[in-house]
């Protein structure tokens, strides 16, 4: 760390001017230090370290605000422990804002006052990003996305090749030579996005959605130019980079003239584009943004696809991705799907908007410097999974899938990790009588 200059300090403090709003001022002034948020935090619950209490993280940001923007903080800083921005403050902020928070927002929902704690941690990250203190690992993920168009720097030719062989596989699987995985086709109803993990490590997850689209007779396309559902700049706190990534996705949906942008299974990607991007870009989107979970539920409701629950053997439980559920509002759709797709579905305790984070959110999976902490806090999720006695853990988020795969191995859970789309694809009954207008 170190290297704090007056110029950097100024850039960090600019957040309190450029991002000023009633919401920001309210939350900066609201915490009463009751500490009752401690039990809502997975970091505090595992480590019992006072610095991991969410209110402590809030106070780091609020104390800087007090120091430079309140009379008490300017004149008698000791009274409210108003802090200067110095190397020590920066070191502690980086460690706690990036390394000890998944931005899951559970503390905000349960705060005795109503302080949006995750929002203030996000504000702290924006301050750090403005001062160039984003952990190198996370920043390199953002840099890849900015430079190449996807966070794994997958060359377009490689993506196209992968999609081609997946298309051949799909044709064989459904025994229909007209089955396809359309690419860069304008005028389709849906532009479907991907998490770069899919073409890179989990191509069968693309096959799963392609099969569902085929079964539903959907009119859809992928884009080879901008398909990355993720926006890691949302996690790094660099709003300018977050804007660039969101703008690219917006432009591509417009370019392909699609009426709906369907997000692949990715909690933060959905949140970043569905909820945050219109505010980054300061405009209402003329197209609909929805998750593939919402779309699949729509297909089941409308009878566009048929599923056979007996195809899924074993007990299935559901992990709720925080950004999709608690801060994204997609709570019921995945449950509706599972109730129709599997015969033995069991909930975790707690679940839904009250779920526990898997530990991989907030960019944690991209920040290898915090791996040990990340796997330790995963213990709470491992315990929840064990208590369900499930054979399959299903989650509509590739980021959560990665964390759950590692949790499965580290805590010897012996479960299978799947996405919701993969479960549906496995239970799918291809009905030749359904018209396929999208083909």
């Amino acid at each position, binding site marked *: 760390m170190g290297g704090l200059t007056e110029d950097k300090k100024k850039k960090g403090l600019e957040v309190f001017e450029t991002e*000023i*709003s*009633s*919401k920001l*001022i*309210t*939350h900066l*002034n*609201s915490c*009463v*230090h*009751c*500490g*009752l*948020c*401690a*039990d*809502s935090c997975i970091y*505090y619950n595992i480590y019992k370290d*006072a*610095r991991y*209490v969410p*209110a*402590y993280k809030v*106070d780091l940001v609020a104390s800087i605000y007090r120091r430079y923007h*309140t009379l*008490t903080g300017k004149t008698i800083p000791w*009274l*409210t*422990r108003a802090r200067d921005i110095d190397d020590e403050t920066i070191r502690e902020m980086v460690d706690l804002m990036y390394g000890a928070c998944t931005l899951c927002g559970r503390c905000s*929902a*349960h*705060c*005795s*006052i*109503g*302080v*949006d704690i995750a929002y203030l941690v996000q504000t702290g990250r924006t301050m750090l990003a403005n001062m160039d203190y984003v952990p190198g690992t996370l920043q390199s993920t953002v840099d890849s996305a900015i430079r190449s168009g996807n966070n794994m720097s997958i060359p377009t030719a490689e993506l196209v090749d992968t999609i081609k062989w997946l298309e051949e596989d799909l044709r064989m699987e459904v025994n229909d030579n007209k089955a396809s995985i359309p690419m860069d086709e304008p005028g389709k109803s849906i532009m479907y996005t991907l998490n770069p993990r899919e073409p890179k490590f989990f191509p069968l997850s693309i096959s799963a959605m392609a099969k569902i689209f085929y079964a539903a007779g959907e009119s859809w396309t992928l884009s080879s130019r901008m398909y990355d559902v993720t926006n890691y700049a949302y996690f790094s706190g660099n709003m300018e980079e977050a804007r660039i990534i969101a703008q690219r996705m917006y432009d591509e949906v417009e370019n392909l003239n699609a009426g709906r942008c369907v997000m692949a299974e990715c909690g933060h990607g959905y949140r970043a584009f*569905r*909820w*945050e*991007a*219109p*505010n980054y*870009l*300061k405009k*209402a*989107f003329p197209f609909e*943004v929805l998750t593939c979970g919402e779309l699949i539920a729509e297909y089941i409701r409308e009878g566009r696809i048929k599923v056979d629950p007996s195809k899924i053997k074993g007990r299935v439980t559901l992990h709720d991705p925080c950004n999709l559920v*608690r*801060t*994204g*509002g997609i*709570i*019921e759709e995945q*449950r*509706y799907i599972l109730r129709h797709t599997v015969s033995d579905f069991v909930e975790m305790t707690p679940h*839904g*908007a*009250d779920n526990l984070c898997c530990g991989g959110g907030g960019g944690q999976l991209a920040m290898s410097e915090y791996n040990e902490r990340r796997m330790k806090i995963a213990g709470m999720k491992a315990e929840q999974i064990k208590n369900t006695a499930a054979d399959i853990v299903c989650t509509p988020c590739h980021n959560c899938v990665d964390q759950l795969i590692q949790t499965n191995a580290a805590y010897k859970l012996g479960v299978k990790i799947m996405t919701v789309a993969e479960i549906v694809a496995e239970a799918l009954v291809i009905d030749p009588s359904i018209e396929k207008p999208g083909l």
Partner: protein
Amino acid sequence: MMALQWYQWMALAALGICLAALLAHFLRLLRLGKPVEYSRPAGSTGKAIRYAFTGAMSPARKESAFLHLPTYTAGLLYHMGTFLSFFLFFFIIAGSLPEGWLAKAIVAFLCISAFCGIAILFKRMIRKELRVLSNPDDFISNFLVTFFQFLSIAVLFLSTVQLSNRPIVQLFYYIIYTILMLYIPVGKLRHTVYFFAARYHLGFFYGWRGIWPPENLKN
């Protein structure tokens, strides 16, 4: 009504300054305007804001409440006692104190609420994570409010035993009231205003995204 003493005028002036400062905090929030959202709403912000002030505050829903019922109850009683003491101030300064069973009931309730304040203060001193979190303002705020409640009890109690004119207690009461009023807008006690704004913003956030109120869900 008797002519007011200098310390009573001082208390009233402090009250005026406090209200003006809190109003300034509130007007600043109003000036900054309502949240601006460009995303398509998925729920009702009105219903969610109502829920933020009602159901979401209940121990049945709020983890910070149901996991800490003694603290939650103590906090609730302490706040009720605080508001009661503030309300009582107007009767004390007007010289028309409650009498009989009502005075005794108020004294009893304020005793409970003031002891809740002490318990919360001790908890802050004893629990490590609270000590790390706390700053001098946290202790001063609690001390001032709790002490003011005890002085309210003293003034009221002395009046029930016909000793209300003890000038030293009265003087002390108004001085502490003055300090408290002047302190409210600068320390954490300004959550008097920000608490309401925080619940509003949280309700707006969850309502816009269709997360609150949870009655919307089938699960």
